[in-house]
């Protein structure tokens, strides 16, 4: 992993981290291994890595010498990070020569071009996700990773404790480290320092693992659903009473996670509400939507008159 401060990726690091994955072999020794690229400017752009396959190779072969030089000039520009020749092909001598002149690293891979592209993309995704710390709790309910957010003092920890005592597994409370994984999913875990610990007003700091046993805790979990606890607004006339609207998406690190807002008020058992919200989410994923169901039924009755 690269660290937070320098977002520069060096060819040397790239090669070392991907050589097993991509079955890479360097054709130009360590030429150009100090070449760098800025990852922070990546965003939508992809890494300036040229991945050539059979088609590019044959195209290059059919060109005249002069044409070839022109194409290479364009392809092997200063912005290019490195060139990977996939499909188990070998570079032409003039390409190698040209690259050496420009100090551009050349790699060959035994994998197919498509596979190479995929792996490089995954690698870049894993790099570009710096972990973030957010203030929330993370639990696993019915196999769903549920992130509980809300202002301090609203009862996140108490609610998490209630859910743990019902047998759901606890990842962390108060501080969650979130990271985007290569499959574009968010994974959350506890900071090592406070793993298994929780702070409850009136009880102080407690250790969940020691109280509920090792089965009650998880080291990390994917984040599938966000529950946001909010104080119930007295005016609150515009709340979605039917639940017709789909959960809003909450974006963290560029990953969209469905978010359900649950108003907190005396007499509402938040733990049960969260539990049921998870069930509703699972049903929705299966394709069943209760609000649509009742709307349809009401419409049928109304139209039969």
């Amino acid at each position: 992993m690269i660290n937070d401060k320098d977002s520069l990726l060096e060819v040397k690091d790239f090669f070392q981290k991907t050589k097993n994955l991509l079955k890479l072999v360097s054709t130009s020794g360590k030429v150009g291994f100090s070449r760098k690229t800025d990852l922070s400017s990546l965003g939508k752009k992809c890494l300036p890595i040229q991945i050539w396959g059979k088609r590019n190779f044959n195209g290059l072969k059919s060109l005249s010498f002069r044409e070839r030089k022109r194409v290479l000039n364009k392809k092997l520009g200063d912005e290019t990070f490195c060139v990977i020749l996939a499909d188990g092909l070998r570079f032409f001598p003039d390409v190698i020569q040209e690259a050496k002149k420009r100090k551009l690293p050349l790699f060959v891979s035994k994998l197919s071009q498509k596979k190479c592209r995929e792996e490089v993309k995954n690698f870049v995704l894993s790099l570009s996700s710096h972990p973030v710390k957010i203030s929330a709790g993370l639990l696993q309910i019915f196999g769903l990773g549920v992130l509980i957010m809300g202002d301090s003092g609203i009862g996140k920890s108490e609610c998490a404790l209630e859910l743990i005592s019902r047998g759901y597994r606890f990842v962390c409370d108060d501080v969650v480290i979130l990271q985007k994984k290569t499959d574009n999913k968010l994974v959350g875990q506890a900071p090592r320092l406070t793993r298994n610990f929780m702070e409850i007003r009136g009880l102080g700091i407690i250790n969940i693992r020691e109280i509920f046993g090792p089965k009650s805790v998880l080291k990390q979990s994917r984040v599938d659903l966000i529950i946001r606890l909010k104080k119930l607004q007295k005016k609150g006339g515009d709340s979605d009473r039917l639940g017709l609207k789909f959960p809003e998406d909450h974006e963290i690190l560029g990953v969209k996670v469905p978010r359900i807002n649950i108003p907190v008020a005396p007499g509402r058992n938040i733990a049960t509400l969260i539990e049921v919200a998870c069930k509703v989410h699972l049903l929705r994923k299966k394709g069943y939507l209760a609000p649509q169901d009742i709307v349809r039924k009401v419409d049928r009755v109304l139209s039969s008159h």
Partner: protein
Amino acid sequence: MLKKKITIKNKLGMHARAAVKFVNVANRFKSSVKIEKDGNEIDGKSILGILTLAAVQGTEIVLKVSGKDEDKALSALLELINNKFLEKE
């Protein structure tokens, strides 16, 4: 929102008891209190949050206070840090 950069001055840094003092002061106010360190932001009203910062002596943190009583809250928190969490050392 009020923002203020401050350096932790006491010898032991933001240790557990100092964190408790900080949280207690922060909870006296309605405003939300956030602490930022190295780009990570945590809730200043949570003990575990502050402990994960692992702020040692000399660490620079940024206090972000927002709400109706933000002036009072910020000055009270700054006073606490500047007074080295009322420790004797």
